[in-house]
């Protein structure tokens, strides 16, 4: 994290980013370094042109940068941050996966953890059938395998 200027001041250096669908974003360095990728770039000296991100589309990048902005704000309290995160990650599956992939690609550890925790929460407490329905996964076990797996699972669904 930049030790000198707060991200709210406009004197901080900016990074230019270009999404897969050619949308450009300008973001404060202090915000961008939430991503390890950008952190290394900044430390090594960034090139002048916009950094191309062929794996992230504009919509997702906008969301991710919004999250980084919030998390780079030194005035925000932990409670507010938790509340913000809870609202931020409450999205439908397609958006969730986009965020997860972007966080993975840009190496933003906290966002990746947040998204993974959300998916884990969607799995908890569900039976295998319910999990299949939520995530649209096909059951590819044979009837014999299904039987064996069900016996093992009786414990998990038990009391």
């Amino acid at each position: 994290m930049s030790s000198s200027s707060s991200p709210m001041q406009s004197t901080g250096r900016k990074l230019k980013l270009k999404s897969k669908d050619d949308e450009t974003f300008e973001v404060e360095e202090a915000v961008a370094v939430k991503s390890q990728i950008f952190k290394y770039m900044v430390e090594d000296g960034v090139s002048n042109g916009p950094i191309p991100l062929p794996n992230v589309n504009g919509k997702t990048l906008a969301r991710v940068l919004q999250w980084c902005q919030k998390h780079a704000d030194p005035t925000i309290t932990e409670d507010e941050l938790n509340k913000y995160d809870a609202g931020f990650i409450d999205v439908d599956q397609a958006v969730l996966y986009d965020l997860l992939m972007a966080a993975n690609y840009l190496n933003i550890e906290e966002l990746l953890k947040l998204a993974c925790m959300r998916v884990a929460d969607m799995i908890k407490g569900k039976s295998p059938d319910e999990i299949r329905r939520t995530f649209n996964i096909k059951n590819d076990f044979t009837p014999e395998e299904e039987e064996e797996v069900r016996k093992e699972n009786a414990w998990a669904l038990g009391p």
Partner: protein
Amino acid sequence: MLLYFLITCFSFILFIKSLPLKPLPPWADEMRLLPLRFWKDLSLFHISVLIKNTLPSSYLPLVPYNMSLIKKSLSSKVENVAETEEMSVLDLPELALECILERLPPAALCSTAAVCSSLRERCLSDHLWEKHMKRKWDSIIGPAAYREWQWYIALRRDSNNLKQGKHKGLMRLLSLSWPFSSFRSKVNDTGKQRSSLPVDSIMAWYLALETGRFRFPAQVYNRENGNVGFMLSCYDAEVSYDCRTDTFQARYPPHGRRAAAPENGVPWERLRAPPVDTPPHDLHISDSLHELHPGNHIEIQWRRNKEFPYGWWYGVVGHLESCDGNENYCRCQNSDTVVLEFNHYTPGSRWRRTIINRKDHREEGNEADGFYGGIRKLKNENEISTWKRLWPAEVLE
């Protein structure tokens, strides 16, 4: 003659045209051009493909029929990507999937292992279950329990091998000559390949513990739920877990010929893994006698008579009668005699103190007062505070 031949060709062409509801596969064109050759090459194989192609395409991937027979079940990834090209959780990069699975509690991990084969493969992985084992069972599973587990899986492996040995030869023969999926899956079952949980996996161990199927050696504090006769003692027992009540059932070794009744509802706080590898009927060789001085916390083996198993009893090293307890002048450590005090008994009680000889203490006692055996000096603060926590509310006789 020629006319007859042309008519059959024609009607055949019409037949071909009317059959499929979707565009003909490429080889069908060849059929139309060379009807004679087609009939020559015809096999059961080709006709069934033709019939298959009349069904809606979403049920059948368009792969050659022989491949789908001989190849093992298709990877679930192909089938799991929905028709509309939406991303599925299975399409996430490995690191992300790992990240998600690591955050699942054991029950959810078990349920996820039952969803589909590719998830199952990941969910069965040892490193995921290692964390859960450590978190829940570390405090009461020790080397003795681990050895019991090795025995348990060795026995199961042996019985599995016996079962498989009978069927393997016949099934393999059948699967080669009759390539239908039902037989193939039977071979898979006896081969125990895709879906079965490896008996030596950590997940298998965790489940065996949780369901109570696996009984293991542990020690129970204040057995028989605060029975006055066992206060501040710790006895060996075979325990099994009851996940409904989150407690254990303890089975104690018999006292002589009298079988001990099992104790139910033993809570986690009253259990521990055996701290030393001494079986309950064996004398523990004391190794810290020369170090003992007043104030030390100890555990000593004690049994009513030589037929009974030992229990471990908590006490402290006290001062000799000749010593007034003043730290600066205390010479108790230099004496051959060590005083052991069990302060949860009243001062007049015969259980309150005992004397042992530092030099050659093994087992001492008689039929009236029981037999005092090996001694362990307690160094671990946790052990000491556990005994203190279990201190009886009232002083005992």
